């Protein structure tokens, strides 16, 4: 005999579980990406892409470093959440788990690589 109340059953065994956290994080990163990507798009137009030394100097400017770090974090997080949903919707069976793991690891590598580059650039360690 089950003495669990219907409410308790729903609270404990809802199908969504961590879904609202995922949903909310996707919105938060989306909102953060609006000003960050607009800033980067405008900055891109004036970037000295022809000169490596000037690019290093640009990346080392504190404000640019900080904004790029924020951009990398929100971009990679948002991408991770989005691609995860796409895989959950279209990939099935064993492939689904493999794809989810690959995407998760890939995004962690991406975030670490981006942050590493920006930290190195801001402390002036690049050649």
């Amino acid at each position, binding site marked *: 005999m089950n003495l669990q109340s219907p409410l308790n059953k729903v609270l404990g065994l809802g199908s969504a579980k961590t879904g609202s956290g995922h949903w909310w994080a996707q919105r938060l990163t*989306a909102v953060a990406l609006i000003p960050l*990507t607009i800033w980067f798009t405008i900055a891109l*137009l004036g970037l000295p892409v022809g000169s490596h*030394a000037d*690019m290093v100097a640009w990346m080392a400017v504190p404000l640019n470093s900080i904004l790029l770090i924020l951009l990398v974090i929100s971009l990679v997080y948002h*991408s991770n959440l*989005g*691609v995860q949903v796409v895989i959950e919707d279209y990939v099935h069976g064993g492939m689904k788990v493999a794809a989810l793991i690959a995407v998760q690891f890939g995004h962690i590598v991406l975030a670490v690589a981006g942050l590493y580059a920006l930290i190195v650039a801001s402390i002036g*360690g690049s*050649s």
Partner: protein
Amino acid sequence: MGRKFMARGDRPLSPHLGIYRWEIANSLSIVHRMTGVMLSLGALVFIGWLVSIVAGAEAYEFVQGGLDSLLGRLMLLGWTFCFFYHLANGVRHLFWDIGAGFEKRQAKMSGWAVMIFSVAMTLGFWTLALQGV
């Protein structure tokens, strides 16, 4: 595993995606996903480009050279459209999240606005970029 017990081919499926006509609303919805996936690949290139800057002049010139090639430029053009589209349609989604703009007419209008915005911004951005502002 669970597949054997769960997925029975003869069960009715919902929401019968195949019967819907392609209109502005559902077309833009799937394009939002596709541009999102493309932008994830773009993020890979973006971060590779950042890493190349600190990896030294040679690595940077290799990556920048690739982006400056015809194929690189075409891909950047595609990513520019994907970005402006995903940005504008993402804002559209955020308005829906707070419960605004749900009327059929409004949703249709905002859909066309997103389309016009992303094409116009892509052209505008590349006009400025090629002029070397």
